[in-house]
């Protein structure tokens, strides 16, 4: 266990360093549009004002100094957006409950529904149910969230007023309104993953069904239900859980950019979209760091789950 944790910790540090460096170089050194001070100074700035801003924000310092200074600010919570002067950590902290609410609800939905659909499609392989679920999966995978979101907002939000058009209510303020405002975003975000996951699960179950140990289990006289749940699903769920961990982490780290933007959910994804639009490099770097941390931590948790599901896997 200790070795596992140390290895994970070192990997995480190396990964974060590499990601931060690449992002920094991309957005700050190779910034399209040239000197960031020019951009901050605005359309009517004169050269002396640009120089003043350049000096104030440290853009006139060597790149490595800028990098270490920026990263230190990000990690000690004193990073501020160049454009708006809002504290970056505060913005992320403020957006996290929304993003976690979205990710949790959608993550549960897409996991459960895709297990249901994938299993159904596998055990009914080649039959009518399988064909219908295949088509549905394809539709789900091909449905961009901005389109599905726009359709839901128009018909369920505006036309029928069944759901709110946008917005977010904190769970602590009203659990009912919290869920009510998240139904459409949960559904929109889940659809894409359900399609993909159910296809992966279907294929894995079909492979597992032809394994020797499954045949042995059947030969031993175990009930088909027991074979499916204890022998087939338990193994087949491994890649799904691995995928789920990564996708969930990505959503927490701002991956639900489109869903959050369409529904006006001011989560980390919305912040990421806004930061990209404004080339708010410090905020972007912070979000990238958050995503990287979330992915690494959740991947470690997934590895633990692997060991639980498959005793052959050991952490060390």
């Amino acid at each position, binding site marked *: 266990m200790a070795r596992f944790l140390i290895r994970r910790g070192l990997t995480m540090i190396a990964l974060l360093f590499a990601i931060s460096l690449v992002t920094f170089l991309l957005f700050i050194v190779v910034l399209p*549009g040239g000197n960031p001070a020019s951009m901050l100074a605005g359309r009517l700035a004169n050269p002396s004002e640009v120089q003043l801003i350049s000096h104030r924000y440290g853009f006139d310092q060597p790149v490595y100094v800028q990098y270490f200074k920026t990263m230190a600010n990000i990690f000690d919570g004193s990073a501020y957006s160049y454009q708006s002067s*809002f504290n970056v950590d505060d913005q992320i902290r403020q957006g996290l409950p929304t993003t976690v609410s979205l990710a949790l609800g959608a993550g549960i939905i897409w996991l459960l529904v895709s297990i249901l659909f994938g299993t159904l499609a596998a055990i009914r392989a080649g039959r009518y149910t399988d064909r219908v679920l295949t088509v549905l999966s394809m539709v789900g995978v091909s449905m961009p969230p901005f389109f599905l979101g726009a359709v839901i*907002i128009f018909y369920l939000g505006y036309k029928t007023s069944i759901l709110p058009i946008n917005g977010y209510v904190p769970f602590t303020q009203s659990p009912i309104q919290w869920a009510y405002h998240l139904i459409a975003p949960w559904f929109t975000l889940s659809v894409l993953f359900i399609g993909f996951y159910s296809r992966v699960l279907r294929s894995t179950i079909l492979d597992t069904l032809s394994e020797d140990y499954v045949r042995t289990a059947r030969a031993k006289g175990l009930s088909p239900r027991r074979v499916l749940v204890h022998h087939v699903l338990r193994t087949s769920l491994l890649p799904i859980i691995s995928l789920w961990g990564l996708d969930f982490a990505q959503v927490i780290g701002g991956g639900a950019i489109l869903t959050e933007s369409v529904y006006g959910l001011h989560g980390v994804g919305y912040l990421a979209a806004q930061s990209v639009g404004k080339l708010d490099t410090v905020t972007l770097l912070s979000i990238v760091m958050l995503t990287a941390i979330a992915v690494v931590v959740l991947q470690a948790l997934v590895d633990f789950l692997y060991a639980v599901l498959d005793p052959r896997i050991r952490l060390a």
Partner: protein
Amino acid sequence: MSRTLRPALAGLTALAVAAAITLVALSSGNANAKRPARNAAASVVQMVEGTFPQSLDPGLDYTTQGSEINWVVYTGLATYAHKNGVAGAQLIPGLCTALPTISNGGKTYTCTLRKGLVFSNGKPVVASDFAYTMERALKIPWGGSGAFLTPYVVGAQAFASGKAKSIAGVSTNDATGKITIQLSQAYGPFTNVLAFPMLGLIPSGFPMTVQATSPPPGVGPYMVTNIVANTSFEAVPNPYWSKINIPGIPSAKVSVEVKANSNVAANALSVLNGSADIFDWADNIPGSLLQQIQAKAAGRFRYVNLGGSTYYIFLNASEPPFNNQLAREAVVTGLNQPAMSRIGSGTLVPACYFLPPDIVGHPPLPNSSCPYGNPDKGGNIAKAKALLKQSGLAGTSVTVWSETRQPRQAWMTAYTQMLNQIGFKATQKLLSDSTYFTTIGQSKKLHPQTGFADWNQDFPHPVDFYGPLLDGNSILPTNNENFGQTNDPYINAQVKKLGTVPTTQLQSVAKQWQALDEYVAKKAYVAVFGYEKFPEFASSRINYGALVFQPIYGWDLTSFSLK
């Protein structure tokens, strides 16, 4: 096998159904509310906007969204009338008893503060607060300080660069309330500069750094509270305003909750179905919703030409091919403005003159008098082809620079196609919105040939258009706004001469500005493709007839009231 597996599948199905039932049960908790949840307080109006202001600290903000709010929170020594149309562009005394008196050949501005002024935190206002406010704007620095303060106010540049401890050109007397500002050169619209929200007074001693979530107290009908970064804030009535009676500045009638959501279509639908009240004027209503809104909100929606913005295509007159007048004339002749207006959901008013209609100097002439064809009729491709052929520049490669946001990108796509139709070899080059103007502003490095440009008035004075955009003296190596690098001695001389005339005396030189504007149209230095109309859209709760759509700052929050 499948038959015997049913119990397992039934379990999974039951789980999914249970989840669905839970969701339905949660949503049914709101069954009585046909409309989404909203602030129940009757005196709160909800405004939705696509972009959060750059900052609610007036020392930093230089955006339309920020100015709209800051205007009613930070009153300057002068301000604007709270009226619709041209009347709203009229300067009125703000915190001073009268508009500043101008002496010493336009280089000295003097005024006296009103008695009994207090900030929204109850602290009395003194004259030295003005000096402090300007110092703070220079230190932060405010986005317009390099254009409107450092070049003109004596000692401003020295203070900004840290060479002086105060601004030599600003002197104040707290006992008498007298404020005197010395300029190094006459600048006609300086009274307008004093009306910027950035120069709206704040208390001395307030931190010299941007306070993004707790902006300084001001003197105005409103104060800003509950700022949630990039998400929302509230403009609530200033409790001390009722004790300050400044003629021409109304009191706040309602609180305004401002929510930012980048999905402008959802914002428009929210206002249409009444879950929000005011649509931000600076956002474009998506074309797909326009018909619906026009049909269902006929009495609470219209497009208004605020008369202070110009959309144009810059043509680099310092380099081939657009240093050739015939090539420029070909572009203006071929431009199909009605088609471009359709691309923009009909929000463009076809035009050919650089100054927009409510700016003094705009030629009050019909479009039929435009030098290269009536812009209402669409472009004349055949004539444009002939002009280009005559110039000998047919086949020249041209790069068209464009932002990515719509409809600007689509406008430039149409323009690129037109250039190819008339004989150029044009290609479109796209840049991110946030870096577009600073990139094409690198005049010496990039040498941009042609592309999209626009200008919204900072104040209603023609020099705000001609000064930075067409005066040869304003060409800069970086952050250049004279994208076409127009350097015409006649324009330069006229801008220098007419730019010193104060805003309040502009009518005396209106004919000369008009002559200059007609000259620019004739020389085809820019290809104007219209003046933009903005949406004035509110929910049915709002007293629509009482709304004021101010030509400089857009929505006047003091005009918001419920039926």
